[in-house]
């Protein structure tokens, strides 16, 4: 047989197989889309029973399975940040609950075991005039203090700059730093932060994060009325019983009334839990 004919036959077979696979894949995608639309309609109907509506732009996020991650507290990073903020640390006091307080000529820094930080220091620069200048100064100070974030987002309002960022590629809903400039070259830093790379273990199982379940649990438990604008899956920082910092999979649901956190595993509203 000539090679030309062999190639023709091969092309025909490959075309047929590819068309079959394409059809199969397309069918699955179409089925998924139909299921998602049906689910969204059902959820909307159920939510209306609780007095909640979905915004026109709202789309149910894709379900996912996220591992609970752990973070080791880094006293070395905390001390480095304190040294950078204060110029030189003249006093270091560790309290019984794990809070470490640093003091220096330029101010004070306090780190708590759950990552909460409170600091007041001299910036060595003039107090910025306007939000744009505040953003520029904050970006420079955060870098100098070693407070870096993946996908860092800085926003400014009324002289206060807030920095958020992702950990393991996802937002941590209660991890943010606010830097307020005041007086003559002074700044107050507050918020919750973490250092280092999070980890899990090979045998750790993931937590299913199912958007529809979270929305319905939110509606049933919150007794909120209003419109759901969007929801995002991510993490929240919490300290477990052995004082290890955990990143727990959590939904953030934004409504026209405010923002709410729902634990993916327990299906509880965080305010209610705490």
């Amino acid at each position: 047989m000539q090679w030309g004919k062999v190639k023709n036959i091969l092309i025909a077979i490959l075309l047929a197989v590819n068309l079959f696979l394409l059809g199969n894949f397309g069918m699955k995608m179409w089925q998924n889309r139909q299921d998602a639309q049906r689910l969204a309609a059902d959820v909307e109907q159920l939510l209306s029973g609780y007095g909640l509506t979905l915004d026109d732009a709202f789309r149910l996020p894709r379900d996912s399975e996220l591992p609970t991650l752990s973070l080791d507290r880094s006293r070395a990073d905390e001390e480095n940040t304190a040294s950078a903020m204060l110029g030189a640390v003249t006093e270091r006091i560790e309290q019984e609950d794990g809070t470490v307080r640093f003091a220096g000529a330029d101010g004070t820094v306090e780190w708590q075991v759950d990552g909460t930080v409170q600091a007041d220091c001299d910036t060595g620069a003039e107090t910025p005039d306007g939000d744009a200048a505040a953003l520029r100064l904050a970006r420079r100070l955060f870098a100098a203090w070693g407070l870096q974030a993946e996908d860092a987002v800085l926003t400014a309002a009324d002289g206060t700059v807030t920095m958020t960022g992702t950990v393991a590629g996802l937002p941590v809903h209660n991890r943010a730093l606010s830097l307020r400039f005041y007086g003559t070259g002074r700044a107050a830093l507050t918020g919750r932060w973490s250092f280092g790379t999070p980890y899990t273990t090979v045998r750790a199982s993931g937590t299913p994060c199912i958007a529809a379940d979270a929305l319905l649990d939110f509606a049933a438990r919150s007794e909120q009325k209003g419109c759901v604008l969007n929801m995002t899956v991510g993490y929240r920082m919490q300290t477990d019983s052995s004082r290890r910092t955990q990143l727990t999979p959590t939904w953030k649901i934004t409504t026209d009334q405010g923002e709410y956190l729902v634990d993916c595993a327990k299906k509880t509203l965080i305010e209610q839990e705490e």
Partner: protein
Amino acid sequence: MNGADRSVKNTVKNVSLLLLVLLLGLLCAANWLSGVNMGQMPADSPAHRLYDSLYGGAFGYEVRSSGLAAAQPAQLALTVDGTLYGVQYNLNDVDEGMAAVRPLWAQVLADGALEAVSESALLAAIQAGDCAVLRYHGGIPLSAVAGWMGGTWKQGANLAAETLVYTAGSGTLFVRTADGALYAAPARAEEAALREAQQAFRGQPCSFAGETYAVYPESLLFEREMLSLPLLTVEPLDLFAPASGGLEGMLSAFEFTAYTDFYSEQNDQVRVFVDNVSTLRVNGTGLLQFAAAGEDSAVRAYNEGEVSGSAVLDAQLDCARQLLDNVLLACDTGTHASLYAAAQAQDKTTLVFMQMYGGVPLLGAQDFAVFTFERGALISATIRLQRFRASQTRRTVLPARQAAAGTSEEMCGMIVAYRMQDKTCIPQRFYWNHTAPAA
């Protein structure tokens, strides 16, 4: 058809074939990915990581095979500038101390031939130079301790070590076992590792008891010791309360779901969850009893052929620790667990955990948690959950030096622990003679 036309046609066919093969590969991958259950794929597999980065899952985190210790030391000590400094019964202090001495212990715990030695050998060694001490609650297999520190120990791997003393002067590792026996093996850490640990370690001045009192010579006696701990009150636990959210998390820890069939007993005080291979009996007030039909258990430390040798115990410890952490987190007990004993017989391993509040053990009439593994499968588990809250009242524990002075002639150890008295947990100093604690 001339030669040039034939050549063009041939090239077109070749390119088409190549493109179709590439498309075939892509479509096969797309079909496979759309049908695969990512939840069942190992978190560290490249496919899982690719899927997560494509579809918004978590990525960029470390996946550790083990490494989280199932027990934290009760006491740590290290000689710095000729003076012994130590930390004890405080999670923060112990965490910080561990970070400083871990590299040193990783070098010390690098295997050796253990031999039974006399107390006088230990006494002589601790007076001969710099020392490092690690003391655990209960007897921890030496191989597990070595693994947590980053070292390895194979000879006498299952020896239940309670206290480890490294004497740099004599280059010896002493191991006090849970039954009070003393062993020693040659050990050597680099001078630089010792210096680095000494620079980073912070603690309170203390000394060895030596032969002054009827306690083990390596017992740490702190100068000006003022161990003040809060009294704990027991809060009622209702695992079935809808608002608690704990039941689902707890079921998930045992690989059950909220939809697993169950039946109630004792006026719904007890719920028994049953699936094809295992049963979980949950008492609303906190008693959990899990039983599985042998190797079919859904809770597994490892699958057949995945691990062997000392890694078997590591995997079982990891599985039990993780399960307990999840249960305690779900039920918000305010406590954590620490390994207390491990026993291996043929293919069965029994792990016993004690409940801890802020680094101090809570002693009860029964063990807090007991796990039994048959090879990789968890075949039974009992957990006695209790929720504690610290009260404003604090109690100062009898200093170790005074307690040591009050010992009888029989040599013993000393621990600080909570024990229940009239519905309140009170911290006290106990003598520990390896049969039962006595206040």
